[in-house]
């Protein structure tokens, strides 16, 4: 794990020397800030529920940009050859990369805590339980989303391709619940698979074990596949 953290640390530093981290964070804050004010002004309620739903959508769009570089760039530039000939396990590389992306998102999410503080300072009394569960859900959703992005980045040595693959997978998982409207018989199953429908309960203040397990298994599954992809890269 020490090795994975070392890799994560380097990767996080790499985010902040390139413009990517700043652009993504700025875009995220502008959009979420705009949504926060709009929702607050129109609803006049000290609640973050609406904002949380909107943040999940924003995440769908920015996650591919946060992860596209992770493994694709190492493979394009050949630095992965140095990495994989050092005494480093394949899963440590994948885990390190994923943790860096998650770390960046954690920084972004931390900055949105200002919204809660504002609600509180403005005299509102938000339901703190819902705030906490909403944030917990966002962290879980982000970890699943970013793990899928990491997998996409392992599949190719081209960053744009990695972003498109990640976006396609995420969008599919996002919309799969909607297919339940047509295939009514399988509606339950399809909704259970949907990455977005799973978030509803978190925003409403309910933390279900099933939802936690869903996001965690998606994360672990994607990272496991990414590790296998890196392993099989060696055979080509």
């Amino acid at each position: 794990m020490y090795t994975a953290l070392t890799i994560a640390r380097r990767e996080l530093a790499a985010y902040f020397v390139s413009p990517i981290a700043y652009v993504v964070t700025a875009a995220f804050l502008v959009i979420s800030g705009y949504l926060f004010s709009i929702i607050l002004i129109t609803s006049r309620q000290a609640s973050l529920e609406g904002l949380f739903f909107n943040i999940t959508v924003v995440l769908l769009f920015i996650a591919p940009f946060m992860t596209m570089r992770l493994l694709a760039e190492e493979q394009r530039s050949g630095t992965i050859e140095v990495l994989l000939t050092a005494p480093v396990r394949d899963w440590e590389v994948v885990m390190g990369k994923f943790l860096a992306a998650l770390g960046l998102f954690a920084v972004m999410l931390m900055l949105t805590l200002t919204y809660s503080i504002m609600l509180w300072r403005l005299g509102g009394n938000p339901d703190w339980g819902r705030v906490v569960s909403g944030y917990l859900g966002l962290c879980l959703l982000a970890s699943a989303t970013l793990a899928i992005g990491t997998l996409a980045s392992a599949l190719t040595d081209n960053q744009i391709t990695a972003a498109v693959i990640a976006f396609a997978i995420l969008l599919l998982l996002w919309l799969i619940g909607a297919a339940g409207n047509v295939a009514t018989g399988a509606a339950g199953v399809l909704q259970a698979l949907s990455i977005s429908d799973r978030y509803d309960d978190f925003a409403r203040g309910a933390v279900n074990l099933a939802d936690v397990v869903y996001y965690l298994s998606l994360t672990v599954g994607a990272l496991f596949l990414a590790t296998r992809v890196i392993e099989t890269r060696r055979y080509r």
Partner: protein
Amino acid sequence: MIEAQGLVKRYTTRTAIEDISFSVERGEILGFLGPNGAGKTTTMRILTGYMPPSAGSASIAGHDVVYDSLAARQNLGYLPENVPLYPEMSVAGYLDYMARLRRVSQRREAVARAMEQVHITDRANDRIGKLSKGYRQRVGLAQALLHSPPVLILDEPTVGLDPRQIIEVRELIRNLGGERTIILSTHILPEVSQLCQRIVILNKGRIAAVDTPQALTARLQGSQRIYLEVAHPTPETTVALAEIPGVEQVQEQAPGVFDIQHQRDRDLRQSIAALVVERGWGLLELRAVRMSMEEIFMQLTTQEDSATAEPYAEAPAPEEELATTS
């Protein structure tokens, strides 16, 4: 220190290397020589654990590169071809990162020492992306030396450097030899004869020859050659020289300059000298001609095309299972 036994690497459409076996003793510098695409990089990538062989096995310091990969990798430093580095990092930052990954115990000292060894201490805080090719090469080399590994594998360590840098890097490699075991690849021929105790000549994925530079030179002279220069050649000089027992062929390359090919293991210089003096042709120069590394290389890699390619073609297909295990 390094053992390779029957290494084979097949890709879906082609075979990169076929039946590569060799061993390197502690402290030895072994050179891989061969045209582009001969399998030098593939062989090195297998030794470093970057890719597993389709068949055969290899070990570094007694650790199998597939089954005991981490231990094998801990014992080696690798400079890949083209020296891939992270352009956004500083030299010292990058070396510190690699030292962490290698779990070097005294990182600061190790980084300082490695930078010292390749003379880049004054560039410690420069961004790697802004360095010249020569400096990047040194950063790559410093990275390979960080953990003082007993085995070094260097893929074309001097490519792209200017002549002064080449001399510096060769000097460095020579100094590292003796305590470390080194494999280096190159297509610069004088480099191997200067640096290496033994040479592996690769061609089309197969070993064409393994020997010391001296032995290769001697072994490959199927027939010895003598250079003769006389002041007053006559039309019958060529004929008379050809009649000396043991001479196979005589060529007059320029007026008075002869290239004499004779059988191995016979020194004909005395009889030739005697003949020249007896006929009064006026001896100016007489010496045995040694084949240069270039000529040996050409001879080996062109012979390979017609002669030695066949026997290996029908080799039994080694098992593919290795390719599916991790």
